[in-house]
């Protein structure tokens, strides 16, 4: 099935030469040159705003209207992309490339069965008949391990899980056998185990049809595991470009090395004896959380969904507990019940011996100030209308007899503690970067001098280098103030880096709970083992070199 004529340049499928792209006064890409050969996986890696998605889009002429190319050229299979417009460009793009995006739900049309979407794309781009397209689609669904392909083709996107949807996207992108697959953060929204499966599948399929793959990602471990060559971008500039060996595993560029050093590595020091023997400050006893669903019919009982089932935990004063789990494991529900944003359906959460669910109104408001929470997305955790000062002041309680200006002075101190200067006091949240916003959130949470801080995926939305600094910050604040910390995360490396103990949640149940060392080195539950086996990590291997580490061989089968 290769009626695509051979190009005069068989060496490079896509060639980008000295590409400069601007949007208004801003330069998005500055003099970038890379090339992609048939059969290889090229990764483009960088932090948010580095221009990696812009580069991927410019390679197929998909730049938004206000973005212009001011220099350089892009050729696909010998055709200069700049010379094409309108219909010929769309045809070339459709025939030659397939795309997979981060969020599969938005890329699939929710009102159409997936089969029709697959077949239509294939008919349009590859010019095959409908029966043949149907045959190909069935074969492809079988290939991506979707049970009962015939029935699956008739179903709608929302009937599939996130991982399945991303596989369907992959199927849709590859059905017409493009020469280039562009995957823009294809697995960022997926859980660790599913991520590995999708990436493995992606590489296999691309190999089978002999296509090339451009993988856009922020995850250096994924690059090291799946890419042949890699381009590292920083603020639109190319930092380094070459084989994964040269660029990442043995970094020759200081900026790449710096990026790598931001990876969460190492393990928390063993607890001091004082903490080890400290009394538990937070006790979670047999907590279950169920969400009431809708009644299907008025006389039928409500269907309910158990998010957390019979979980018992303890957090001692001053220690850090990591709650690890995939999306839907109930870890966020559990975290929210700790600060009583959720009321457990059964069981108790008691803090310093006080059952939180028995408190109401005034007493509750007093008690809960000792338990603070930092959310995942700092942008939505700050009121867009309040300045930093007003936000931090939310956490301060002025007492009678306070000097005027006390709030401002205390807020300045808190900002200094989280590493922000005084000049940020009167700034609105949208004027801050993501990392700065999260610092403000931390300052607000510290204002009432809590004894327990719950961090709900507090670093997941941040870039790697920012993430490392925020982790350091939380740790040093903890040393200084001695509060206990519950750190909810899906990232094992982060958990290892910060936690004294780890609790693993799987489908609402606590499957593993113990000291960090014990859980990570001798996992008892098959899910923990699978999770460890699926996680990809880059570790320093001495003398400035890095190596890819996989934690353990798979020894159990777990449905995800």
């Amino acid at each position, binding site marked *: 099935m290769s009626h695509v004529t051979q190009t005069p340049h068989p060496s490079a499928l896509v060639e980008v030469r000295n590409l400069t792209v601007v949007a208004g006064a801003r330069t998005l890409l500055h003099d970038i040159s890379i090339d992609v050969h048939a059969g290889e996986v090229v990764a483009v890696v960088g932090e948010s705003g580095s221009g990696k998605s812009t580069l991927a889009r410019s390679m197929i002429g998909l730049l938004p209207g206000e973005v212009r190319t001011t220099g350089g050229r892009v050729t696909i299979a010998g055709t200069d992309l700049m010379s094409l417009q309108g219909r010929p460009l769309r045809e070339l793009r459709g025939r030659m490339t397939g795309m997979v995006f981060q969020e599969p739900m938005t890329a699939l049309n929710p009102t159409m069965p997936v089969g029709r979407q697959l077949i239509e794309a294939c008919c349009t781009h590859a010019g095959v008949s409908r029966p043949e397209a149907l045959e190909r689609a069935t074969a492809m669904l079988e290939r991506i391990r979707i049970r009962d392909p015939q029935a699956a083709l008739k179903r709608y996107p929302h009937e599939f899980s996130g991982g399945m949807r991303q596989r369907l996207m992959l199927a849709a992108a590859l059905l017409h056998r493009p020469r280039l697959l562009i995957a823009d953060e294809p697995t960022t929204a997926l859980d660790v185990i599913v991520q590995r499966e999708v990436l493995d599948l992606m590489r296999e399929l691309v190999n089978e049809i002999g296509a090339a793959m451009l993988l856009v990602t922020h995850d250096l471990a994924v690059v090291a595991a799946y890419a042949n060559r890699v381009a590292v971008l920083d603020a639109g500039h190319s930092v380094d470009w070459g084989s994964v060996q040269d660029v990442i595993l043995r970094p020759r560029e200081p900026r790449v090395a710096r990026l790598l050093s931001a990876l969460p590595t190492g393990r928390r020091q063993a607890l001091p004896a004082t903490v080890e023997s400290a009394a538990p400050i937070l006790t979670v006893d047999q907590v279950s959380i169920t969400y009431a669903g809708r009644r299907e019919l008025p006389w039928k009982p409500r269907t309910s969904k158990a998010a957390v089932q019979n979980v018992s935990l303890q957090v001692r004063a001053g220690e850090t507990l990591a709650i690890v789990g995939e999306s839907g494991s109930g870890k966020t529900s559990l975290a929210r019940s700790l600060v009583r944003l959720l009321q457990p359906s059964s069981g108790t959460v008691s803090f310093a011996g006080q059952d939180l669910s028995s408190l109401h109104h005034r007493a509750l408001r007093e008690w809960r100030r000792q338990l603070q929470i930092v959310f995942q997305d700092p942008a939505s955790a700050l*009121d867009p209308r309040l300045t930093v000062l007003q936000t931090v002041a939310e956490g301060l309680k002025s007492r009678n007899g306070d000097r005027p200006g006390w709030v401002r002075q205390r807020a300045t101190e808190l900002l200094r503690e989280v590493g922000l200067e005084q000049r940020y006091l009167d*700034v609105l949240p949208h004027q801050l970067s993501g990392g700065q916003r999260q610092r403000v959130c931390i300052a607000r949470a510290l204002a009432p001098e809590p004894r327990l801080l719950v961090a709900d995926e507090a670093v997941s939305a941040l870039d790697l280098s920012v993430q490392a600094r925020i982790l350091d910050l939380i740790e040093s604040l903890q040393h200084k103030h001695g509060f206990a910390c519950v750190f909810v995360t899906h990232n094992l490396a982060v958990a290892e880096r910060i936690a004294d103990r780890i609790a693993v949640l799987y489908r609402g149940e606590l499957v593993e709970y113990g000291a960090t060392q014990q859980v990570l080195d001798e996992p008892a539950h098959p899910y923990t083992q699978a999770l460890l086996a699926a996680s990809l990590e880059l570790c320093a291997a001495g003398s400035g070199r890095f190596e890819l580490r996989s934690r353990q061989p798979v020894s159990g089968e777990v449905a995800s």
Partner: protein
Amino acid sequence: MHQRLTLGGTIGAGLLGAMLFMTLAGLIALPYDPVALDFNQRLVAPSAAHWFGTDQFGRDVLSRVVLGGRGSLLIASLTVLFTVVIGLPLGALLAYVGGWVERAGMIVLDALLAFPSLLIALAIMAVTGPSQSGLIIALTIAYTPGVVRVTRSVALSLRETAFVQASEVLGHTTGHIVWRHVMPNCVAPVAVLATTLFASALLSESALSFLGLGVPPPAPTWGGMLADGRSFLSEALWLSLFPGIAIALSLLGSNMLGDALRDRLDPRMRSMGNAA
């Protein structure tokens, strides 16, 4: 943080300002007595003596437009003011409190919304009788459910935001959260709604005046003048034309100002000059 309005906003504010200036100037001096009858000067076309002409009773139209503006604009702005002052806190509170209080409140409001607002106003006017204050009360009751609905829908999504939850965890009371976080963040959509309500109030006032339920004659309002001029459209167009233009310009002004306000009230659109 002062920043100029957009061009549209400036024009809108200018138009409304001009209308306001006109009615205020009318407080000091009017070319003629707007209610004095002069049967020698009936239906005089616009001229140097009567810029906007005279009506069937020989009253000066310019004077009546100026005086009518006072009534119409006052009714419309007070209606909008009361609607927002009542509707915004009510909507925010209902959404935030939730439970059966919210359900009961929404049933009442939905029932009110189910009737055309003009019909409700009509019914209330039938009780209060035609008067300026009766008109304001009627229109306020007719328009408040819409404001509550809009506020509530915005507040419902705000209730789930992390910053509201953070405030809850910090031990703040419901009152504080509604006042500090929920209401301010509802202001932008409500402000836009308010400008369209201003326009509707102007129009409803004229409709009710037309039905004889507005401000009783001989005191002029724009709507009333428009209604009176209807029977003379073929011979004396100016009777309806000038109050019509006054209404149109006020509506245009309020809508343009509304659009500009929406942008202005969004904190993300404010000056980025001191971004770090």
